[in-house]
């Protein structure tokens, strides 16, 4: 019964996602465009490097990684910061706070519909196409299971970071500034735009200690490695789990504390 009220939100989100017919077409065009640019750019880079393997990745490794990273991005990105910022500014948040549901959960489940839609419309087709085009460059073994687990945690980490940043909007009117900062930092440091393998050594080490790489780098590394050491897998998943719990707790706490602060001060 409890789940049902959340599933209602999921369904509404799915209907809404379908309404944006042209939106969907444009997203697909945008992704194709991005991938085209990425393809030729990396082709040029590999051509000028003179070797087939750069930083331990072949051209097709890099490409598969980036294509799937894009697909993951489309699947996970939910513009929660915008949504929160806007409803805080317009005062709509008051209505949401009155609903008999925790706001953090309400927002997440409202998005879950588009998660499902995006998974079906962007990630899955991309995955199948990439798999077919590269003739099995993506291993289809136990790694799929690791990947699935990893993605779920990635979604949660991503959402927690978003929610944390969105909470900052309670204190400032600058939604744009906050959102753009979060976006560029996450995209760069998570390995969504450039595989972390390409980062220079000290930067790579620093990035590995941050939560961001758990969002894109971790699931994709698990997916692309067909015969990994079980230790490596556990290490990656363990790190993710750690960040998942940490970011969730921090974002929840921050929201609670901020909300109290705001209601006391009559924000």
């Amino acid at each position: 019964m409890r789940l049902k009220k959340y599933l209602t939100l999921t369904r509404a989100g799915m209907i809404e996602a379908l309404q944006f017919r042209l939106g969907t077409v444009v997203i697909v065009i945008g992704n194709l465009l991005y991938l085209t640019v990425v393809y030729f750019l990396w082709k040029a880079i590999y051509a000028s490097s003179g070797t087939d393997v750069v930083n331990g990745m072949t051209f097709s490794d890099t490409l598969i990684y980036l294509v799937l990273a894009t697909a993951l991005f489309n699947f996970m990105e939910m513009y929660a910061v915008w949504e929160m910022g806007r409803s805080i500014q317009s005062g709509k948040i008051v209505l949401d706070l009155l609903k008999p549901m925790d706001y953090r959960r309400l927002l997440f489940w409202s998005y879950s519909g588009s998660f499902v839609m995006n998974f079906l419309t962007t990630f899955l087709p991309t995955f199948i196409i990439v798999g077919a085009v590269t003739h099995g460059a993506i291993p289809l073994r136990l790694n799929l299971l690791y990947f699935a687990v990893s993605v779920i945690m990635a979604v949660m980490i991503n959402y927690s970071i978003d929610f944390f940043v969105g909470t900052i909007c309670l204190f400032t009117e600058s939604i744009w500034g906050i959102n753009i900062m979060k976006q560029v930092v996450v995209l760069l440091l998570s390995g969504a735009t450039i595989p972390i393998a390409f980062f220079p050594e000290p930067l790579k080490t620093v990035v590995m200690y941050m939560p961001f790489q758990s969002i894109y780098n971790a699931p994709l590394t698990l997916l692309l490695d067909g015969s990994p050491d079980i230790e490596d897998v556990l290490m990656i998943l363990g790190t993710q789990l750690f960040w998942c719990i940490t970011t969730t707790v921090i974002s929840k706490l921050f929201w609670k504390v901020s909300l109290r602060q705001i209601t006391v001060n009559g924000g």
Partner: protein
Amino acid sequence: MSKIIEIRNVTKEFKVLNRREGLKGSLKDLFSRDYKIVKAVNDISMDIEQGEIVGYLGPNGAGKSTTIKMMTGVLEPTAGEILVNGNAPYKNRSRNAQEIGVVFGQRSQLWWALPLVESFKLLKDIYQIDDKQYNSMLDLYRSLVDIEPLLHKPVRQMSLGQRTLSDILAAFLHDPKIVFLDEPTIGLDVSMKAKIRTLIHALNKEKNTTVILTTHDMGDVDALCRRIVIIDKGRMLYDNDIEHLKGFFGSYRTLKIRIDGDMKEKAEKIHSELPQFSVDSDDEWISVLVDEDKEKVIDVLAGLQKKHDIRDMQLEEISTEEVIKKIYEEGVE
């Protein structure tokens, strides 16, 4: 008196998308869409004289804002002709805009972050108002309302009432020939409503500005308009003096009674006893609108007294509000 607005057999049609319901419907919408044609305004004609205040009434979705958009040049009629100040507004929106002012009760057209006086100065440049006229207008405003505290306040910090007031002043600033007021008193408290009505009345008298007023508040109509135009579903229902309108319903009286107990419940009960009359209730009174051609008020009262313990009663002539309501419900026949 000269005609400032002439509307001849104007019709406006829109193409509207039919959305299907539910998840399956949305899926279908992805592949095929079906449209239908809606007549928002259907064959309307009227003339408005310079200096008139006309109440333009109708239920939501009646076609009021479409008509206004056509008069302001934002929209071109599908058929028919509109002349504002002798010109077709949509053919030269800019020139027409110079002669009109527009106020939306809920949407301020002023610069949100600027103090009112800076908005005025920008408007002065945009409308190319010369210094003399600008100053005399400000003097006039000062004599009508207490604007000093407003002038240096950013619009975003104003209360709704102050904002509406400011918007009205801004709309009259370039001394337009016509001002369109769309629900100017919506959401305001009683004293602010009165203040705004007085202001509109004074500006109309002072500048002989034509005012077209759309509203759902009959208080606005009673305070300002001699003439009203009513449309519904795109068709014109009525265009004449407000007094003349009441004449249609001359045989109607409102019988107000007070009974102990829950007013709403009682009102429903009374309505079931007197299905031929409309019954309303507020905190104090239950009102029965009695058509004396059908039954004398006295008889109705006597009938009611037998069944209910009536504490108090009043008899009133029909109010504008009730007249309009009757027209929305059953038209003018």
